[in-house]
Every structure is written in structure tokens, then in C-alpha cells.
């Protein structure tokens, strides 16, 4: 009996277990998943928690719910991957061997890497919203906050879901307006990028929205340290910004086990071929999602598009054929812009987000790169799709490869 071993039962690991169990014969292949947590978090929902739009119950479900019959799941921390010997070591000393390994251990935040960030004000006046604990602490804080300087800071890239910090800013504007205290809250968005977003057209749209909503923008800012006494952040060049409430998107890196096993780059992301998703160092190791060093967004939509390609390429590998699946960097995301509206962007390795309609050219119904109510409902509906269709590896009515149909170049 051969074994397909999947590390991490988050978005990518769960989808792959579902897809491959349908594909591989149970007599020939055992499928094993390992994760340290029993709870699956719907991470895009973390954004909604600080504003009271979602509660904790809305973003968690038992991982077990998404496991198909015939898949073994083990809940333990993975200590080490010994790629040379095709085996892994769990914290309880158990050893699991594999024929094919999929790494889907995601990314984590490292607030401890920035001096002062996790100081005495951590989760009191300094928050993250990339963990459920951080999002809940911030939700509590906002309930009784009387206003002041709200600073939203991205420490450095890469980060998960690069638009989430902007959406947070738009939500904050809407939230404090609805509470009748927007005049008491000054919002400043502080980013290492040279504009609101990386890609020119999207940056223009999003930068325009910041201005319209009276949100200050500070660019080219790489966070150096946080002073808890003075309540200021300082960048490496010495620029200081005062805050009463700091919402931080800390540095990100790959899972600790990747570093410990010597499989990562400087930040613990696994080097892999950006088209085939095969590890660069070991031919029987494949990588999906946030865990890889792919030059595209670390996002759920990326994981979903990659899963189709990985499924195809795993079959090529098993059957000894040349890889036919080629991931093009396709990513799309709904961007919440506040007050019940949203925008949608769609792009890949080579094409920046363009205006137009999605998924049907000229019809939509979703407008690309512009605000509409429908895009907002698209995002809310996405939670249902995530739990019921996406994680279970079912087909979605959209293409894996990005298409230029429906997009306008100028």
C-alpha cells in the first residue's frame, strides 16, 4: 500500500484530500492528513469580527466535518520532515512514511520579530486581526473606544490576503461613521508599498477610495519598532507615527517545521515550481497555497485554483507522464469597501487586475475593479461556498485559468 501524506488540513490540505480520495483507488493508496488543530478556521471571516459583523461561531467548524470517508486524519504537531528518507516525525515521537508528500502548512504571523510589537499593549491597544484571538480582542476594544488615532500598518510583505488591510480601513471608516463618531477617529493606512496596492490600476482605484473616505496614506514604510510607552511606531528610516490604537499586520513566515527541516527559503516558504507546484528540492514533494514561495497572492482563491492543477499533476506523477497542469498565477478576490459595497479583482502572474465583468464577458454579474452591492453579497456568499463546496473539493462554475474575455485593457 502506498501513502499520500498531506501536511496541514487547512484550505489546501482539505481540498486535496477530498479530490485525491475520489481519484485514487483505496486498495492502492492510503491518504493521511496531519494537523495540530481540530478546528478549521474560515480566515476571511476574521476581517468581519472586529466590527461585530461576525462572531467566533461564524468562522469555526470541526475539521472532521470536511474529511471524506477513507481519509485518515491525525491531530498532532509535526516536528520534522525528513525529506531524504521520505518520512515525518510527530511531536509524540510517531514516524509516518510517505510515497508522495503535499506540503500545505500555510503561513503564520511573527509579531515577536519586531521589537516592541508584542509588548505590554499587545491585545490591549495593539492588535492583529489575522488570528481569531486578535480579532476578538479588537472587537472588544472597539465596543468602548472613544476615538483617537487609528493606525493600520503592514510591517512588510509578503502577507496573507494583501487586500485585507485595506478592507479593514474601509470597514473602520464605515463602522465609525455608522456609530456617529467618525469625526473623533483619524484613520491612517501605513504600508511598505509605494501606493495603496501593488498593481497600477488597482492601486489607483483603491487609493482613490482612501482619499474619498478621508483615510490618510503613508507609503514606503518598513516597520522598525514599536514604542509602547510613547505609543509610536518607527520605521527603519526613523519616521515616527503616533497611535492610540494600532492594528498591525505583522511579518509573515512559513510554518516552523519547514525551517527546522531545512526546506524553506529565508522566511520559511518552500521553493517550488510556480507552474507545476513541484518542490524544487525533492521530486515527490508538492506544495500548495501559502506555504510555497509562489510569486502570487497568499489567498484562498489561489489555493482553490492551484488545487485543480495539483490534482492533474499528481496523476501525471503517479502515472509517470510529463506534467500537463500549468498554474498561471490566477487569483481573484472580493474587496469589501464598506457600507454594503464591494469590488472584485481578477489577475495572474502576467496580467494586472483590469476593469470588466466576471465571470461572463459583458454580463458579469460581478463588475471588476468597481464598487457594487452585488460584489459585497458575493463576498458574504463566499463563506457558504467555502464551507459547502470549496473545502469538499467540488467543482465550481468558474475557470481555473484566468481569461482575458470580459476584461477591458483601456
Amino acid at each position, binding site marked *: 500500500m502506498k501513502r499520500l501524506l498531506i501536511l496541514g488540513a487547512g484550505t489546501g490540505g482539505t481540498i486535496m484530500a477530498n479530490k485525491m480520495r475520489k481519484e485514487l483507488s483505496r486498495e492502492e493508496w492510503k491518504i493521511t492528513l496531519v494537523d495540530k488543530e481540530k478546528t478549521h478556521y474560515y480566515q476571511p471571516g476574521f476581517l468581519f469580527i472586529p466590527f461585530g459583523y461576525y462572531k467566533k461561531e461564524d468562522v469555526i467548524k470541526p475539521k472532521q466535518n470536511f474529511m471524506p470517508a477513507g481519509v485518515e486524519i491525525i491531530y498532532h504537531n509535526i516536528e520534522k520532515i525528513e525529506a531524504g528518507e521520505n518520512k515525518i516525525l510527530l511531536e509524540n515521537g510517531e514516524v509516518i512514511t510517505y510515497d508522495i508528500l503535499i506540503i500545505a502548512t500555510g503561513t503564520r504571523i511573527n509579531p515577536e520579530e519586531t521589537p516592541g510589537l508584542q509588548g505590554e499593549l499587545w491585545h490591549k491597544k495593539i492588535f492583529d486581526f489575522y488570528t481569531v484571538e486578535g480579532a476578538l480582542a479588537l472587537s472588544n476594544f472597539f465596543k468602548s473606544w472613544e476615538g483617537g488615532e487609528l493606525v493600520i500598518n503592514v510591517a*512588510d510583505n509578503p502577507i496573507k490576503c494583501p487586500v485585507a488591510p485595506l478592507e479593514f480601513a474601509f470597514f473602520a471608516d464605515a463602522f465609525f461613521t455608522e456609530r456617529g463618531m467618525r469625526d473623533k477617529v483619524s484613520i491612517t493606512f501605513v504600508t511598505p508599498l509605494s501606493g495603496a496596492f*501593488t498593481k497600477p490600476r488597482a492601486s489607483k482605484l483603491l487609493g482613490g477610495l482612501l482619499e474619498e473616505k478621508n483615510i490618510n496614506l503613508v507609503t514606503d514604510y518598513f516597520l522598525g519598532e514599536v514604542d509602547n510607552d510613547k505609543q509610536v511606531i518607527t520605521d*527603519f528610516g526613523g519616521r515616527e507615527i503616533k497611535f492610540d490604537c494600532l492594528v498591525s499586520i505583522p511579518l509573515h513566515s512559513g510554518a516552523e517545521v519547514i525551517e527546522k527541516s531545512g526546506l524553506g527559503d529565508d522566511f520559511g516558504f518552500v521553493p517550488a515550481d510556480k507552474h507545476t507546484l513541484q518542490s524544487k528540492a525533492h521530486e515527490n514533494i508538492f506544495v500548495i497555497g501559502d506555504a510555497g514561495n509562489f510569486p502570487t497572492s497568499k489567498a484562498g482563491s489561489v489555493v482553490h485554483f492551484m488545487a485543480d492543477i495539483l490534482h492533474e499533476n499528481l496523476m501525471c506523477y503517479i502515472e509517470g507522464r510529463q506534467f500537463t497542469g500549468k498554474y498561471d498565477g490566477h487569483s481573484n478576490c472580493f474587496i469589501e469597501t464598506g457600507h454594503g459595497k464591494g469590488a472584485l479583482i481578477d489577475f495572474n502572474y502576467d496580467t494586472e487586475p483590469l476593469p470588466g465583468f466576471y465571470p461572463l464577458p459583458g454580463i458579469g454579474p460581478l463588475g471588476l475593479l468597481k464598487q457594487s452591492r452585488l460584489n459585497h453579497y458575493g463576498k458574504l456568499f463566499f463563506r457558504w461556498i467555502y464551507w459547502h463546496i470549496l473545502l469538499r473539493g467540488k467543482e465550481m462554475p468558474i475557470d481555473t485559468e484566468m481569461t482575458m474575455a470580459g476584461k477591458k485593457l483601456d
Partner: protein
Amino acid sequence: MATKTYAGETVNVNEEGYFTEPSQWNKEIAKEIAKEEGIDLNDQHFQVLEMLREKNEAGENLSIRGINKSGVVDVKTFYQLFPGAPLKKATKIAGIPKPASCV
């Protein structure tokens, strides 16, 4: 495609002045670009430039964080060497593409 002339050599650059062919670079060229940016290059500058060129050659994503891990200089020194927007300036002077910070 635009071109520029530095130290008597014609090089290919993009609309922002970043090299499109890193092989066209040499130290004399670097000195002239640096002058445009108001920087007088010393040995430590060159160590950083070489490190950036090596990382670029190896296909690594360049970032401010990566500077610390490189062991050549720390980020504070990097800012002192290339004041203002160090990564943008240093990559321009090193004759490599502007870092495409992740989408």
C-alpha cells in the same frame, strides 16, 4: 524600450530607469547612477550591491526583511547607505529590476 548612457555605455532600461538586462552593468556605471541619486559609493555600498545582484540572479524575492538575513549589513545601515527608499535606490544602482513586492 528606453536606453540610457552611463560611463560611455548604452544600457537598456524600463520607463522608471531600472535595468532590463543586469549583465550590462559594471562598477563604473553604478557610480554614475549613484551620483544621480546623490550617493558616493564606497566598499560597503558595493558589498550590498553585489549581494543584491546575487540574490536577483538566484531568483530570490528581494525585500527589506531579507537584508537582515543576508548577513552583509543590517537594515539600519542599509538605510544609512541608501537614504530614503533604500531598496528602490539600491536595486536601481545595482542594475537589477525593481523588486516586485508580492501582490
